[in-house]
């Protein structure tokens, strides 16, 4: 086996991916070739860095919660987004979801306040529009004009009848 071939097989060999037929000539080459042996040692050194991180503690009831959410469609709280909320309280005793409930309460209160303000503004606007726009007592200028006109027409009619001497 040539060094070039040996080098290309070393990683697979250390990963346990070579068959006996492939591994035997490589082992023979490594026994004879110091540079390739050093290369193999290098790879072994590098592999020693790969210490798997410790498995994080799985929260109690995780599987049951996820299964319930999956089958029944219940929403699941997202812990990472919640902890990122500015001003949220951080307490070991705070149950998961407590901050979410508090946030929901604040949201409902804010909506109620906004709706009340909107209703008040609307009522004030309607009231303002219904008030007289001038200090005249007449309720409607247009009606006043029409009445004057009618009265004038009646007067005109009376004068015409009087001049004609028509009987009453």
């Amino acid at each position: 086996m040539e060094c070039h071939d040996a080098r290309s097989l070393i990683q697979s060999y250390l990963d346990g991916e070579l068959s006996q037929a492939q591994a035997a000539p490589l082992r023979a080459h490594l026994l004879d070739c110091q540079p390739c042996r050093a290369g193999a040692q290098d790879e072994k050194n590098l592999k020693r860095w790969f210490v798997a991180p410790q498995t994080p503690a799985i929260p109690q009831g995780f599987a049951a919660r996820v299964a319930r959410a999956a089958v029944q469609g219940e929403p699941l709280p997202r812990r990472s987004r919640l902890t990122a909320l500015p001003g949220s309280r951080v307490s070991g005793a705070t149950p998961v979801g407590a901050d979410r409930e508090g946030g929901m309460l604040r949201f409902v209160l804010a909506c109620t306040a906004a709706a009340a303000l909107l209703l008040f503004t609307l009522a004030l606007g309607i009231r303002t529009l219904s008030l007289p726009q001038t200090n005249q007592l007449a309720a409607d200028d247009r009606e006043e004009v029409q009445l004057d006109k009618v009265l004038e027409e009646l007067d005109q009619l009376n004068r015409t009848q009087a001049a004609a001497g028509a009987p009453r």
Partner: protein
Amino acid sequence: MEQSAPEDDRLVAESLQGSQLAFQLLVERYQERIFRLIRGYVRESAEVEDLAQETFLKAYKNLEGFQRQSSFYTWIYRIAVNTVLDHIKRRGRSPVQAVEDLEVLPVTQMTRSPAPAANLERAEISSITQSVLEEIPEIFRTVLVLREFEELAYQDIADMLGISIGTVESRLFRARARFKEKLLQKYPEFGTEL
């Protein structure tokens, strides 16, 4: 990897019939592996939990699409890896996208691979390794996590990622070179000149 495919198949079938308990048992069988896999990418435990639950919910939603030609763990690992990579992309924390033929800096060829110093605690080594992995492009980090932490066979990695065994080999080769390069950049004190 120790598996019991018939048990998985039975639980999948019962879950598809609406059994909440069957799906819960399925989650219990894989939760530790999925948490550990995700922990290979993400440090914060709250993020790990969120991504794990997202993985299982996606799995349930797509359970009908599970092809029994592959094993359940291969299938759910793939969902987990995709979920984590999507998350990393969304958060914009990913290093530049890698290309297959990344060149290795000469420094890595001229320097011996360092072994962790004898006085380093296991947790310290793990922390250093995590910090180096975070600076490695996703495609390389994924094969390293699957091979070195999860100890998956090349064939399983190939099935999971939808690539050939040859591609797994070449990615691992480049991934290790890139890991060594970053390790020596960040911690030059570990390097030994040839």
